[in-house]
């Protein structure tokens, strides 16, 4: 647990340093430097730089921690030189003075660190004074909304990190894609292709923090969810300027306040059933977009917030931030780009109606997609529904506040806050987010254990498809279904040896086959039904059959050969290990050559 805490702390620290602190230094001359939108703008720009940088470096096959460190160093140097107006002579003199002072201190054995800090302190003191003066005023004026926002964000963080903290395995199938893409980027193979933005963030953070991408994927996925909640708040605040409404919307999204849909017993066929199903999908407890899509939503919401800010206070920095948001949104999903465009146009004309436009477009597109089978509208439209629902709740509350403020004055917000708290406590309590793991946690942990213990590229894992992204770059992988079908008829023979030339072969066998679904789904498209991955690993019956064959294969081999042992065993999973010494390896290689 302590190690996990240290890992998550380190990953988040590196992420904050790379994507929040560093761009703060890089873009120190922007107008709204200390504000939340200024920080968000810096973050957006930095993400775009990272994505472009990762693409170029990976394409050139020079992406390593060294290259990233080198680029960061050059960027720091350029920023510093820009600050001193490119006066190299002044820099030279400063370096010489520092060296002389150091040698002087070395000789007298007195290191006065305060003198080193004094320069930095002098330059930052004015900034810190402004910063320290602003926060008490802010708390005094808007303490309650700030507390509400903090509470909403905290609940969102707890819900999202609950699973990430306790389990190494992923909760969603897309996370394996991100892990695979991130590993491919780090290994400089297949640099192009989607998804790209989120894997770029994973790759960058993983390289700099020196933590395996599987941990980074796990914790950054949760962080993206929290950032989505924050982006929602930023958008609503920038467009409607009602803090409480923003906080309520953030709570609705972050805590999955809308009740989850009940398990469907029949496929919806009538119009009412389909529309009812859509509303049920509006809860994050039922529908959760992939991390890449959520990141896209973050950029859409932030982009709209920048547009709103530009509308209220035009300046160049907002335009740059908008451009960065648009590019990133376009890289992630064309649908989101359309959504952004529509909401942005509304925002430019009537900022307070932009949330309405977002909600209407989101739901209308979802209704059209649901009622028109074979339509070209992507399924991504359904992933926007939870956000649209939260915006609707926030907008509704903003309207109510505006209406009663004229009568109740300053008591309006506290009264409404009390009412909201009551309603939340009774009807809209936090719900667990949708989660669909694909493997046992012990499988993921043992794979990491093998990668750490055994020398790289000298072992092979034979397991379901989830282990492929977990092993890429460390060792070999072979599909369990292929392995079983290739070898099951021969293992009984004493002369038979597995064809692998690796030193160690690990075969994953589930004593209790993992159930992706509690029962077989009501309807499955034909293309999915014929897919080998679905048949072998997703379908409960298919998986049970495969694991039974695998167990039989391994036990049969173990009876006739002495080079196999049980490497790991628990109530669900058993891992067999075949260890080959050099003689046997050579014999296997010869046999393969023949």
């Amino acid at each position, binding site marked *: 647990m302590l190690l996990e805490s240290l890992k998550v702390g380190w990953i988040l620290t590196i992420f904050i340093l790379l994507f929040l602190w560093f761009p703060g230094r890089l873009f120190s001359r922007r107008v709204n430097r200390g504000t939340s939108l200024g920080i968000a703008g810096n973050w957006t720009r930095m993400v775009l730089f990272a994505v472009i940088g990762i693409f170029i470096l990976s394409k050139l096959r*020079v992406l390593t921690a*060294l*290259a990233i460190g080198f680029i960061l160093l050059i960027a720091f140097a350029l920023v510093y030189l820009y600050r001193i107006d490119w006066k190299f002579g002044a820099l030279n003199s400063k370096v010489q003075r520092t060296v*002389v002072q150091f040698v002087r201190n070395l000789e007298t054995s007195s290191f006065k660190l305060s003198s080193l800090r004094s320069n930095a302190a002098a330059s930052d003191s004015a900034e810190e004074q402004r910063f320290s003066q602003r926060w008490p005023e802010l708390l005094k004026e808007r303490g309650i909304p700030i507390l509400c926002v903090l509470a909403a964000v905290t609940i969102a963080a707890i819900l999202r990190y609950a699973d990430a903290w306790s389990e190494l395995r992923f909760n969603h199938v897309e996370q394996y894609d991100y892990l695979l893409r991130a590993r491919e980027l780090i290994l400089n193979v297949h640099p192009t292709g989607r998804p790209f933005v989120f894997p770029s963030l994973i790759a960058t953070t993983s390289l700099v923090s020196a933590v395996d991408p599987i941990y980074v994927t796990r914790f950054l996925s949760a962080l993206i969810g929290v950032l989505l909640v924050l982006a929602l708040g930023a958008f609503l605040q920038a467009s409607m300027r009602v803090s409480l409404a923003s906080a309520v919307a953030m709570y609705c999204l972050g805590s999955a306040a809308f009740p989850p849909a009940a398990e469907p017993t029949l496929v919806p066929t009538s119009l009412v059933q389909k529309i009812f199903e859509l509303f049920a999908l509006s809860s994050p407890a039922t529908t959760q977009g992939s991390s890449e899509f959520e990141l896209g939503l973050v950029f859409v919401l932030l982009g709209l917030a920048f547009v709103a800010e530009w509308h209220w206070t035009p300046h160049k920095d907002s335009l740059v931030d908008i451009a960065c948001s648009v590019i990133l949104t376009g890289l992630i999903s064309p649908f989101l780009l359309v959504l952004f465009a529509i909401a942005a146009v509304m925002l430019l004309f009537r900022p307070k109606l932009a949330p309405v436009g977002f909600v209407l477009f989101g739901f209308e597109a979802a209704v059209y997609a649901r009622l028109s089978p074979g339509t070209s509208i992507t399924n991504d439209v359904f992933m926007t529904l939870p956000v649209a629902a939260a915006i609707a709740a926030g907008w509704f509350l903003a309207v109510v506040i505006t209406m009663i403020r004229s009568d109740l004055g300053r008591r309006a917000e506290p009264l409404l806050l009390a009412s909201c708290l009551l309603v939340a406590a009774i009807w809209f309590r936090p719900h667990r987010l949708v989660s669909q793991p694909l493997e046992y946690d012990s499988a993921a942990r043992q794979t990491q254990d093998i990668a750490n213990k055994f020398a790289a590229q000298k072992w092979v894992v034979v397991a379901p498809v989830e282990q492929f992204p977990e092993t890429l770059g460390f060792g070999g992988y072979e599909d369990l279904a292929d392995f079983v079908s290739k070898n099951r008829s021969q293992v009984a023979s004493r002369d038979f040896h597995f064809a692998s030339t690796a030193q160690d072969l690990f075969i994953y066998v589930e004593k209790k086959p993992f159930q992706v679904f509690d029962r077989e789904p009501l309807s499955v498209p034909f293309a999915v039904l014929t897919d080998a991955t679905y048949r072998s690993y997703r379908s409960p019956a298919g998986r049970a059959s495969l694991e039974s064959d695998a167990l039989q294969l391994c036990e049969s081999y173990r009876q006739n050969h002495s080079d196999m042992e049980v490497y790991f065993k628990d109530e669900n999973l058993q891992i067999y290990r075949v260890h080959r010494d050099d003689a046997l390896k050579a014999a296997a290689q010869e046999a393969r050559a023949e």
Partner: protein
Amino acid sequence: MTRDWNDLLNDVHAIAPQVADAEEIAALVESFGYNDRSVRQFGFASVFALAEHMYLNFPTGALSQKKSVESGKWSSIWVEIGSAARKLSASLAYSIPWMALLVVEYVRPHALQVSPEFGSALSLSLIASLVTPGGFIQMIARAGSFYSGMQEPFLAHRFSILLLKLGVATTILLAVLGLMLGAYFHVLSGAYLLVAAANYIALSILWMFCAILGAQGIGWCVPLTFLISATAAAGIKIFAHADITLALMLWPALAAFCAAVCARIEFWRSERKRPQRSASAPPRFRVALISLIPFYLYGTVYFGFLFADRLTAGTAIPWFSGLSFGIDGAYKRGMDVVLLAFLISAALVEYLSESYLRYWFHLAAELPQSKPAELVAHLRKRHFKIMLVIPGVFIIAALVAWFVFNRWGSLAASPQLLETVAMGGAGYLMLNMALFETIVLVCVNALNMAVRSLAIGLAVNVIAGYGLSHILGVQYAAFGLMAGAAVVLWKCNAAARQVLRHPDYRYSVA
């Protein structure tokens, strides 16, 4: 120190038969290590007061005439031969052990075979040990040679040991930092990291002691030290049936110990010869250290440049090998051939640059000050000739090395190997020529120009080598060396030509 001001005047006159004014004499007196406090023994309040008095009593012409009568054709040839022998032996002393290792690798490839991970650890630690203490090696060599040349064995001992201690402390600090970074980025597994760190510290100390031996004028001890320690390590391997890895780990420590013993003995011997020098007043360590910092930068940047291509090639290892660092076999073989040619011709370059500087200083002393253009013309002509000799020698050495290794071992001429040899050879050739310019610049107090050129060249070497080795193939790390060497040669040549525009001024500040 000299007892009488007349002796000092004769020393000044021997170096500068013609002086412009009293300030020039003051500068020369201070260059001998005198200051206001020490000249009081002659009865003068300050160095300038002494210089004024010496200028009034400065002899004119007699010494230079006497010197010109003395120097004849045969004696000058003997001087040249002696200088050449000294320089070549001192430079080649470092190369001989490496050449011996190369021969063993080609003739008995299995004798030194180790696991890939251990090989990575050894390569990394060797390269790091050559680069990071490079600055301290230069500082020790400069300070040690200076005080040894001044017949001040106690000061030479004191400064060499102080700089050695500083170097060891820095080395240990860097080793700890390297361990932390290596563990953080999973460069090597735990045990191999410790092996690399220990090897790095031992080798760094060894190179620093070798620098002390060179400064003491007993450079012949260096190959002897290597021979004794290698024999001892081989003996342990054979008679104690130890693994080759243990022998390779022990060798640097044994060599460092032998070198330390040799250095200690020589310090004791030279101090016994001049016991009266024990009372010599030392300069302030801080001042001496600050004055040596440019040499530290020069040494670090130079050695960094020399091995940057190996570092970048090592990082270009494919991920499916399972290693984070490892130099491709064909690349290593190709670069070893041209590096051998470089080391042999670099020894010649050291001699040629010393000879050139002696020619320069001799001309500057002999020719009248009213004819600077003649001095410039002579120097440029000689410079041009030397720049023709260096490539010739390098090419011959490279061809011989290629022929020898082709006959001996498995130097299969694959396209990758040929590309490596071609690019590496061009790079080392240009580096040799740049080395000549660099030594001249250093000796005429234009060290900053040399350091700047090397730093720019190093940046080009690293960026081009790293990028191209990853994009196109590991052999293109040598392209980085070639491009960097071209930049260094261009910048150093421009600096040298700038210096040669005013050779008389440079002579006076040298």
